[in-house]
């Protein structure tokens, strides 16, 4: 399957892509590159498509090194952020564009365009021009154009970012369904972590041209390997402290965050006793506690925000502020002192940046 090894692309002094390596495991894997803008995800995708030449590194497909294969010979299906539909061509002509260049017989082209449009649910709109379609329909044409060429892999560059929120949510599921039906690998670039969690088999979280972590959505969310990942995926509270105990067997470390207050958390990487560490806790993993215990602390409610399906509480622990998310049934008052348990803490070594 697709494999990229040590990809590097520099623009002047900017390291857009700085040593990216990953490999798709399955033929029908849906793999996402997730990160903030400027993290190198789109550049990586474009290198895979052949639109950009890497300064270093190789791209393999199967056993073949395709690094020097020009873009027009790579046989990939690409869905662009702007959709990039040809405005002077009808839906049919857009979808048939790649097929005509392949010099397929007229019959075959007709058949394939019909197939592709049916797959995305757009039959009957063949003669419309892109400007006569809604954003959602245009996006489907872009997908139909990408799959009509029977590509070796599908590449998506933030294809849903121009759709409204409701539609975006629906199309996510349709995309995955479609890709599993076609049984071709997909690489999907997005900055939307919720999107990535929903659609991906695996996610590579990127930051500053590098991959911070590759894993299933579950792993990325529950066991972030770096504070960046913990911060970028979902919301996390970060506390600083000093490691006072390490249990490598259980993979647990104890960190003192304040005089007399210590928290236990899962080790993300090795930490040494006595060194500085960062602990991350997700707001939904802070729960009200009835009795004393490990990771149970007393704190004061300072702010309360109703979010419909939940409450967002701000708690303070001396000078430390914590965000807690609870169900709408948990009613606390501002000023109240509560016992909370901080569950599923993750301990990171503190690195100088």
């Amino acid at each position, binding site marked *: 399957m697709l494999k990229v090894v040590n990809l590097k692309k520099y623009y002047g002094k900017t390291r857009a892509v700085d040593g990216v390596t990953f490999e798709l495991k399955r033929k029908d894997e849906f793999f996402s590159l997730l990160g903030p803008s400027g993290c190198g995800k789109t550049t990586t995708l474009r290198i895979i*498509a*052949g*639109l950009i030449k890497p300064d270093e590194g190789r791209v393999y497909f199967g056993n073949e090194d395709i690094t020097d294969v*020009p*873009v*027009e*010979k*790579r046989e*990939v*299906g*690409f869905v*662009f*952020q*702007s959709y*990039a*539909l*040809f*405005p*002077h061509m009808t839906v049919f002509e857009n979808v048939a*564009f*790649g097929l005509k*260049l*392949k010099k397929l017989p007229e019959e075959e082209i007709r058949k394939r365009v019909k197939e592709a449009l049916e797959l995305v649910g757009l039959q009957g709109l063949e003669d419309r021009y892109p400007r006569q379609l809604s954003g959602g329909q245009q996006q489907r044409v872009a997908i139909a*154009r990408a799959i009509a*060429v029977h590509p070796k892999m599908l590449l998506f560059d933030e294809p849903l970012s121009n759709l409204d929120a409701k539609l975006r949510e629906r199309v996510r599921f349709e995309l995955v369904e479609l890709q599993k039906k076609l049984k071709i690998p997909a690489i999907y670039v997005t900055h939307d972590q919720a999107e990535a969690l929903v659609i991906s088999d695996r996610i590579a979280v990127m930051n500053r041209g590098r991959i911070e972590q590759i894993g299933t959505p579950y792993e990325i969310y529950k066991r972030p390997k770096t504070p960046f990942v913990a911060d970028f995926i979902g919301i996390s509270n970060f506390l600083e402290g000093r490691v006072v105990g390490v249990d490598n067997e259980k993979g647990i470390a104890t960190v003192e965050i304040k005089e007399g207050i210590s928290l236990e958390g899962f080790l993300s990487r090795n930490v040494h006793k006595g060194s500085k560490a960062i602990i991350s806790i997700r707001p939904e993993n802070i729960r009200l506690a009835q009795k004393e215990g490990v990771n149970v602390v007393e704190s004061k409610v300072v702010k309360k925000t109703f979010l419909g399906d939940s409450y967002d509480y701000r708690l303070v622990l001396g000078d430390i502020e914590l965000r807690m998310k609870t169900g709408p049934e948990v009613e606390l008052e501002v000023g109240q002192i509560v016992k909370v348990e901080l569950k599923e803490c993750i301990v990171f070594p503190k690195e100088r940046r």
Partner: protein
Amino acid sequence: MKRGDKVGIILASLLAFYIFFPLGVMILESLATQWYRIQKWWAPEKVGIKWYVQVFQTPEIFKAIWMTFVIAITVAVFVILLNLLPAYVIGTGKIKFGRDFFETFGSIPQTVPAVALGVGMLPVYSRLGWLYTFHGIVLAHSVGAVPYVFRNLTNGFASIDPELEEAAKVFGAKGLTIIRKVYLPLLKPYLAAAGVLAFAWSINEFVLTMLLGYPTIATIAVKVYQNAGGYYWAPHLAGALSTLLVVPSLILIFLLEKYTGISLQRV
């Protein structure tokens, strides 16, 4: 209605009259075959296309008409070809500099008096032996046409989503196919505007033609000048020729607005 508004309306009407008055006189001159002598001196007694027929039957004038359009078309094609690549690299943002330069300084050749440009070209042309030559005049006319064409083509390329080129590549197109299937169809209105403006610039160009081309190269504009008192006193012929000069430009500009939606106000 306030008094000031009324005055404004009257002045606007006078302005409109003022703008179109010379054109009206020109057309009248070209159509009048006989004028009243004393009374109603301003009205033609008889009208007809006599002067137009005469214009086309005078070999040297006919040659000038022919020459004018050949030069204008050559200028339009030449300047467009000359600008395609620069407009592509600058319009699509492949290079970041250049656009501002052309935007700011590009139209200087249009705004300075042509005679000044001519003075600059004269010694060079004389040294190169380009005086009184076809290509010399084409090049001279092209200087002033470049800004129009550059601006239109740059805007054209800038209006095309760069991802379209990438999409074409991804789906198997390269080089000429991309130009033929993606860029040219999308550039059509801009090419038309650029062509019309360059064409119009060329047929209206008088000073440089007179200075660098005459007598070998004589265009309609030169003949108009000669007949309007430069060499002879034949306002009727000058009128007919001027109409021939103006009408093609007007028709082209009208068609351009109608079919491409590009208004010359924006150019």
